[in-house]
């Protein structure tokens, strides 16, 4: 990362209207600008308003969960045959959103895309918070979450039995917990030098001590940097397949079963693409207002937004390919169950509207992004990112609810109706997610300061003239 190789970077090849960082910045200005967001004494009023609203929603989550725990899982709308509904929809949705963070951070690092630098920290935080939100759903779907460890993790328990490693749900436990752990560590490791920066800038003793502990005594030694850089790359190389594996395994939750509408071999790549799609949509949904209100246009430039839009377009097309192949294979397979499922989903069943809403949100509307002008308008991008966010939620709704509500036995067909608690939990997690982001913005550097230094032109070591 130290040497900026323009030829490796897609921008470097041709002159682009939007650079990664606006010109005129120095090491000092970058450091001061970003660290001041965290270190300034006064918290802006807007922060309090935003935090307050999201905190209120987070409390709704708290109440919804407390009520659920006290009363039982019956307060949710899911019941046979739709035994899996909002809980898994929201779980998959949140996990998917989390993926963009790791993707931006790890894959773009491996691809040496320097535009990642100003948004990776934010994206990683988003990953962590999204995974936290996601974990709530399966945990509370167990009904007795205080026993969840007992059921989910292999440890020598008093029952002398072990989890069933042949079950994709068990794979999920491993995948999500590994993902949460590695993302948290990756995030923390990335923060260490910035904690040192904050430690050295902080005015008050408690903050100095707090950031001092978090920085682990980082002093910027060149030997330390060498190992640190190597580790950071290696972690990125590990996180990249990890992030793909997580959503692959989430897709296995469905695909290794034999429910028509779930049992499709394309699920792994199609879920991964969908996750990235939703994740980038969430990145845009959040960064567009953030850069506006915090005046970060110098660091998060139109280039970032435009590239995110392109990623969305590409992953959106892969998702569309998935829909097409599912429909085609349902016909091609000549299986009456597959055929019925697809017909029920598209025009025969009571949830046809969900399918066509999904197609509109995920396939039709985002095609606007083919147009350059659309990619360059923050308003259009923001609207489309919201639409895609909704669309990806609907995708999981369609996959889960429409596949289940008419099972093999027509006598057990039933409709699914979410309850008020279902909605409270969903919107509550959104509140919790935003609340955590507000806390993060206030207390931690939103942009990786040391990596921003590396992409300044001054950072290059000029060759000695022999």
């Amino acid at each position: 990362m130290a040497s900026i190789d323009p030829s490796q970077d897609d921008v470097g090849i041709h002159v682009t209207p939007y650079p990664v960082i606006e010109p005129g910045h120095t090491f000092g200005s970058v450091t001061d600008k970003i660290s001041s967001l965290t270190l300034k004494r006064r918290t802006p009023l807007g922060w309090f308003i935003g935090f307050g609203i999201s905190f209120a929603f987070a409390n709704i989550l708290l109440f919804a969960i407390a009520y659920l725990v006290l009363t039982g899982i019956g307060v949710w709308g899911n019941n046979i045959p739709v035994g899996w509904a909002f809980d898994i929809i929201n779980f998959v949705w949140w996990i998917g959103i989390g993926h963009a963070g790791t993707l931006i951070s790890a894959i773009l690092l491996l691809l040496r895309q320097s535009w990642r630098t100003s948004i990776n920290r934010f994206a990683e935080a988003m990953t962590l918070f999204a995974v936290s939100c996601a974990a709530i759903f399966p945990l509370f779907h167990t009904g007795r979450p205080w026993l969840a460890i007992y059921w989910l993790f292999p440890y020598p328990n008093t029952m002398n039995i072990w989890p069933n490693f042949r079950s994709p749900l068990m794979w999920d436990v491993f995948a999500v917990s590994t993902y949460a752990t590695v993302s948290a560590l990756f995030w923390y490791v990335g923060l260490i030098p910035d904690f040192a920066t904050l430690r050295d800038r902080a005015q008050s003793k408690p903050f100095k001590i707090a950031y001092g502990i978090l920085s682990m005594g980082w002093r910027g030694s060149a030997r330390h940097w060498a190992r640190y850089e190597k580790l950071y790359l290696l972690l990125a190389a590990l996180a990249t397949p990890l992030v793909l594996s997580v959503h692959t395994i989430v897709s296995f939750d469905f695909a290794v079963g034999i429910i028509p509408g779930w049992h499709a071999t394309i699920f792994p790549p199609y879920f991964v693409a969908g996750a990235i799609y939703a994740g980038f949509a969430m990145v845009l949904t959040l960064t567009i207002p953030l850069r506006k209100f915090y005046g970060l246009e110098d660091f998060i430039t139109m280039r970032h937004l435009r590239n995110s839009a392109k990623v969305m377009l590409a992953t959106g097309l892969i998702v569309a390919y998935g829909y097409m192949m599912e429909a085609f294979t349902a016909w091609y397979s000549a299986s009456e169950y597959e055929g019925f499922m697809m017909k029920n989903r598209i025009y025969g069943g009571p949830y046809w509207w969900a399918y066509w809403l999904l197609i509109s949100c995920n396939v039709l509307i985002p095609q606007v992004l083919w147009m350059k002008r659309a990619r360059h308008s923050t308003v259009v991008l923001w609207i489309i990112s919201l639409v895609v966010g909704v669309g990806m939620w609907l995708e999981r709704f369609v996959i889960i609810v429409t596949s289940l509500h008419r099972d093999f036995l027509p006598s057990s067909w039933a409709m699914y109706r979410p309850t008020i608690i279902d909605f409270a939990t969903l919107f509550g997690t959104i509140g919790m997610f935003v609340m955590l982001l507000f806390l993060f913005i206030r207390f931690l550097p939103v942009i990786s300061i040391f990596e921003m230094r590396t992409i300044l032109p001054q950072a290059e070591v000029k060759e000695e003239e022999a």
Partner: protein
Amino acid sequence: MAAHAAHVTDARSYTPPAALDRLAGTSLLVGLAGLILLVIGGALSALHVLPFDLSHAFRAYLLGYVFWTGISVGSMAIMMLHHLSGGGWGVVLRRIFEAATRVLPLMFVLFIPIALGMYFSKLYPWTMPQVVAESHAVAHKHALYLNAPLFLLRWVFYFAVWIGLTVLLNKWSLEQDTTTDPRLRRLLKDRMQNVSGPGIVLFGLTVTFAAIDWLMTLEPEWFSTIWGLLIMVGWGLTALAFAICIESYFVLNNARLGEVYQPRHLHDHGKLLLAFVMIWAYFSLSQFLIIWSGNLPEEITWYLHRLRSGWQYVALFVVLFHFALPFVILLSANLKKRAGQLILVALLVLGARIIDLFWLIAPTHIVFPGAQGATAGAARVIAYALYFIAPFGVGGVWLWYFARQLKTRPLLPLGDEGLENALEQIHGHH
């Protein structure tokens, strides 16, 4: 820097090495020999000298055909990806990819034996009326999709799309070379980029259905949603491994080009190769795990044909040499920078691709009617040998045509804006 730029734009510096002529000549000889052997093999069966079904000869030809068409189409896709995303790694490989795509018209013609096989052998079981009559699944799709005229029509359509795209991209690429006007170069670049976006979409659709038509319908009752992606990434992998072979061949045989292709380029290409190997393994595992776990009769039979009566060893071979070995080798950063070692890995991958296709194609309804004892053994050996002769037969012709195409243009896209950056010596002192 300025001196270097001038050095770069000197078109004659990058004319193809003489070795290319030798390559073309040898290839043609090998190719013709291979095709003749294949015809002889087919004749042995057709004249009932050896008791194996004629479809084996056609299947073998299909293997060779799919393998080499894959290189052309895969090259087209990687080239379009490069046009979309840029990057120095693609600039230096562009001409190899372009030359590979220009073989597509030849491949269009070379499809004819497969069409013949469809009509005159059991190559595709769904062409046989009794199969249609007996199988509900085949009858279901017979009218609207799986019949000979529509099959041929789609074949024409795929090639129309591919040839159309490659003709445009090749034309503009050449125009970039011949002009010196930076605005026109820029315009051509934008054009290529604008075509590549929809081009990738078209590529995805056509390859998916080509993969279904040519390979999946060998077992007409079987289906897998990921099949198109699996073949796509397989073709991409083949194309990349092939390009790396050619690139390393240049580095090893021509000092001048050795300077052009720097270790960092090889390193990047090696990493891409690793990525493709991993994605291939990922898709293959996904398909296997889902079908294995579901264990439904209409799906699992495909794997049962390929994991029993000896084929499990072929499968193991594929896992080891198509994934495990290249994966472990390519983890080493130093190896990826050395042409002499990288070419070996690329050749290993190409070989493994052939074995993989063999595993996909050959086990489908093995026909050795009524043979016993030594004759049966001989029939098997000859029949399976054909599968390994065919890639050389088709490949020889393909390579001959490719080498001729490669010669017609400078080996580097001299009009590309990124060329200067791509060729800049990063680590050396100059």
